[in-house]
């Protein structure tokens, strides 16, 4: 029983990371048709900024805030500087993000080395607590909590605000939004800011989860982010939320009850199977 509880919480914690990566990816793709290969780089920027601040005695909460802010700025700069000039050329936009996705991790390992750096975990988050006989690391709860807060905030933003309305309408039909006199490009910058913030937050939290940061972390989380986005249906935040729970749990349980690595494999096989049965993902929205 205690093993099942631990696996559930750990799976949900991992799912929370995936959700933070996938929610931004999904919004960006849904609105702009851009598969953002630089999303992993944004995560790494957030992770390193958080690590840097935490190692300079900022205190973890403040460091996390700093990392998120840096990631958000980087994401906005990416949209304004590289994506916007290629407006109406989605293929080139994707290629530009591929270039950034290659260059940024390389730059990070040039500055801080290719090896993993130990993440200074604050004492309050380093311990464990007992739940139904299982000894669960506290940081899993922080991850799940953060993902829930982001999910709630995104739902409020999309459902209750004018900008959120524009984003939802733009996911359906971008041209019609402009034909109503709305400058949809402002929504592009906005979803990049939101996506960058969530990815950078994921980076800061991944440091907590894995206990270290390294330049390749972003890239490997990005792959599972893609899996979650496609499973949940592109452009759907709620779909991503469901898919990340499924992916996180399947991965943990399969890894524990069979040989290590089979969990990752089963997630990938699950994606392929799902797409072949339901090409539009769980929520039926594939462009």
């Amino acid at each position, binding site marked *: 029983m205690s093993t099942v509880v631990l696996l559930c919480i750990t799976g949900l914690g991992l799912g929370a990371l995936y959700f933070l990566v996938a929610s931004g990816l999904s919004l960006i*793709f849904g609105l702009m048709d851009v*598969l953002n*290969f630089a999303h992993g780089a944004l995560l790494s920027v957030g992770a390193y900024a958080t690590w840097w601040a935490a190692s300079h005695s900022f205190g973890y909460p403040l460091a996390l805030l700093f990392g998120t802010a840096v990631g958000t700025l980087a994401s906005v700069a990416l949209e304004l500087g*590289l994506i916007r*000039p*290629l407006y109406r050329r989605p293929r*080139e936009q994707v*290629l*530009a993000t*591929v*270039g*950034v*996705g*290659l*260059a*940024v*991790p*390389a*730059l990070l*390992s*040039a*500055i801080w080395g290719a090896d993993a750096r130990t993440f200074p975990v604050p004492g309050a988050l380093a311990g464990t607590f007992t739940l139904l006989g299982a000894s669960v690391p506290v940081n899993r709860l922080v991850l799940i909590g953060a993902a829930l807060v982001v999910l709630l905030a995104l739902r409020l933003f999309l459902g209750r605000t004018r900008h959120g309305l524009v984003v939802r309408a733009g996911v359906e039909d971008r041209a019609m939004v402009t034909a109503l006199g709305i400058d949809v490009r402002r929504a592009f910058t906005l979803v990049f800011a939101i996506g960058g913030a969530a990815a950078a937050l994921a980076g800061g939290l991944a440091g907590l989860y894995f206990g270290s940061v390294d330049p390749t972390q972003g*890239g490997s989380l990005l*792959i599972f982010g*893609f*899996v979650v986005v*496609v499973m949940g249906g*592109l452009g759907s935040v709620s779909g991503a939320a469901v898919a990340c729970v499924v992916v996180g749990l399947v991965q943990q349980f399969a890894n524990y009850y069979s*040989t*290590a*690595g*089979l969990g*990752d*494999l089963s997630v*990938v*096989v699950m*994606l*392929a199977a799902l*797409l*072949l049965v339901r*090409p539009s993902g769980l929520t039926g929205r*594939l*462009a």
Partner: protein
Amino acid sequence: MNVPAVNVASLLRRWWPVPALVVLVLLPYSALPLPGLLDGPIGSPGSLQLLALCLVFGALATGYDLLLGRTGLLSFGHALYFAAGTYATDLMLTQAGLGFWPAAGLGLLSGVVLATLLGSVSLRMTGIGFAMVTLAFAQAGSILVQRDPGGVTGGEEGLAATGLPGSLVGIQHTANLYWIALAYLVVTLVSVRWTVRSPIGRVWEGIRENERRVEVLGLRPYGFKLVAFVLAGTLAALGGVVYLLLTGGATPQTTTSDFTLSLLVMVVLGGSGTRWGPLVGGVLYTWAQHRLASLAGSGTIAGLPSVLRVPLSQPLFLLGVLFVIVVYALPGGVAGLPARVRARTVSRSVPRGVQA
């Protein structure tokens, strides 16, 4: 007497790849040093090794462009078929103890079978769905190799090949490996050229431009796309076998999505959908990566201030930045450069002519 001169020019324009090939075949006999471009003279083993790698990646990019540039299929799983060629051959050598040629044949066959199976499944999807399914399959392969089931793939360490024929091993036989790489390039270029100009190639072009219109003509794009996918997969598997010889083993890096992305970068760098572009891109990328890496280790860079030294020490950083610049400034890639220069000189000279 003007006529033969014209004929020579037009003959040369049509047949220049033949003398170029002759030059490439003879390169191992050259002791010409190319300071800056290569460390030793052309015929030295180090230079030949790098040149062979350049040719292999030029050919791989050419094969990948069969999907991307010719048929308009964005596959994120091309590494899988390359790795299948490498690892299957390697396993046949180390585990089954076969000789090199039967092992290579089986390695190639496994690439073909894998591409046929997975291609027929993934091509049921289009667009981004196709990209994701191919990524998923390749990722599965990559995980499998890295987790090292039963200790056969060597995991993170890679798997050194054993039992290779003596004439293909060792520094003194680098020229043989170079010629094999060159032969692989020729095979790739010829098969891509031949299929692209065949009736199938014209359907591929139609699919790239507008798949719906091909359907309206009463053709099923699926079969044509599968042919492209299997051919590209086969060429990649063949490249995997050649790569195994060149590096003496299999490495897990060749299974990753980063490997496929680097092929994508090569193709775009050189010019997607053009005859020579992917080759040029593959050669440039491979050469730059190796030169930049050795440059990073040299004293030239160590003496620079850290603002310059740190980014310059990472080839991938420079290549990523270069790639972004190409996407912006050179939409047709390097292969589109001559046409752009010509267009510019024409557009400059025309107004001058008008004024005069």
